[in-house]
């Protein structure tokens, strides 16, 4: 059970002055239960890529298979796919419309055909999972702060109980505290609900701490694909395409240059701390 992309190619407005080659023969395999980070500069094709995963965009050429089925097959039900592959867009303002938060979160499960009661149950679970305080549930979603709106938006997709959850820049515009809270919450959902999670971001710091696999996009191509450790080892190449490794990577390289035998491939603050302490302890 997995998702396979086979040479997916996508062009915006083909044949006009606005033509843009957004994806160039992207081939990927996404295993069940993985926690994946997709990183790339603005315009690298990462948003285009994730919209292919739930069939919102149709590849100009190439194929996508979900659980062994071709999603471009005539008989394939894309609505079913979208319930299994939940996509949360960057701006929660684009999806909130109901009078109360609770009703808004019920929208997804109701579209799935669930009864009012079941839908409410799912909404209840989802709002719990994103950690939104219960006293807010019956307020208008338009009165919330940016971070809270984003939680509601995530809950709105989560309530459909997707097998795969894709988050497009879930931390954009949030302060560091709000960012950490959201990402911690997502990591917890990944553990507890056993979902495949794909996190799209342009910040290395964001994803390095959480994901087990990193896909770096550049000009519509997959540039690097591997564990954060493997990817950040190419930090020089990342810089060339306008990205950067986490600050920890730079610190460790600098320490190594100064003569300390630290592990330059540490990607998180924790690992870096351990590695530095170990070098000093060993002395």
């Amino acid at each position: 059970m997995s998702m396979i992309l086979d040479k997916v190619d996508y062009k915006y407005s083909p044949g006009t002055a606005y033509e843009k080659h957004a994806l160039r023969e992207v081939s990927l395999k996404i295993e069940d239960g993985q926690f994946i980070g997709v990183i790339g500069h603005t315009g690298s094709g990462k948003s285009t890529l994730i919209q292919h995963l739930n069939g919102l965009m149709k590849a100009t050429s190439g194929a996508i298979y979900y659980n062994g089925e071709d999603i471009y097959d005539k008989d394939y039900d894309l609505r079913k796919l979208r319930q299994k592959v939940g996509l949360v867009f960057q701006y929660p303002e684009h999806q909130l419309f109901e009078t109360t938060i609770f009703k808004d979160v019920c929208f997804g499960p109701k579209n799935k055909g669930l009864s009012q009661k079941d839908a409410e149950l799912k909404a209840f679970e989802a709002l719990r999972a994103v950690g939104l305080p219960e006293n807010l549930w019956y307020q208008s979603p338009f009165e919330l702060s940016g971070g809270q709106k984003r939680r509601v938006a995530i809950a709105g997709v989560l309530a459909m109980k997707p097998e795969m959850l894709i988050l497009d820049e879930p931390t954009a515009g949030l302060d560091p505290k709000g960012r950490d809270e959201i990402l911690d919450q997502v990591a917890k959902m990944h553990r507890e609900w056993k979902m495949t999670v794909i996190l799209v971001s342009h910040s290395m710091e964001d994803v390095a701490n959480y994901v087990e696999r990193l896909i770096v996009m550049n000009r519509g191509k997959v540039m690097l694909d591997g564990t954060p450790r493997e990817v950040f080892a190419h930090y020089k190449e990342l810089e060339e395409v306008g990205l950067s490794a986490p600050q920890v990577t730079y610190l460790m390289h600098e320490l190594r240059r100064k003569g300390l035998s630290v592990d330059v491939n540490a990607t998180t603050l924790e690992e870096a701390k351990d590695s530095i302490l170990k070098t000093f302890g060993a002395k």
Partner: protein
Amino acid sequence: MLRDITIGQYYPADSVIHKLDPRTKLFATLLFVISLFTFRNPVGLGLAAVFMASFIWLSKVPFGYMVKGLRAIVVILIITALFNLFLTPGEPLVKFWIFSISQEGFISAGKMAMRLIFLIIGTSVVTLTTTPNALTDGLEKALRPLNAIKIPVHEIAMMMSIALRFIPILVEETDKIMKAQIARGADFESGNLIKKAKNMVPLLVPLFISAFRRANDLALAMEARCYHGGSGRTKMKPLRYQKRDGIAYMIVIVYFGVMIAVGIWL
């Protein structure tokens, strides 16, 4: 899906038509539109077609782009053609039940349809080759004399340019909202009319909120830059007629004269 709306959209290219003064283009369009209603026979229609084809060719905008603009008026086109077809009195050509099609009806339906198609394509050449800013600049300058009778020309032009500028923004926004809701299982296609209208709520609410927010932001930004209307405002790039504008005026006037002549004598 919604990207197909071409009305009010600029198509960048390097052509003579693009470089013309917007006033020239507005005047030419006006005469072209009037000329469409002067002909009564295929000769006039042919002339208008040749004229239109030549400036489409000069504009370097792909023809398919203009035809796309026609989709918006397909319904109007069909209704107009049907009315003309069935309701024009005359010698019946075909007859069934209570309907009859006369030869006159057949001709006038065809003429009406051609006029509408030419109207849309002809005017879309202007919007496709002129940036919204240039268009409103031209309009403002051309209509300036109306200031004398207390018509707020500048304000109207400003409103127009903002409205035009917002079309692509809101279209894009609609596209994004639709996608966000489709991802949550919303269905904008199936169902009867009432159900369809109901299904639009998740699309319209965020769209309206966003439009109001944008309008508010824009008003604030304009105020922060001390915008106070048109009086005493100068332009960074004032409009000036070039030699090519003179030539264009001449061509258009000659065309118009010929069309009138054809309308009267043929």
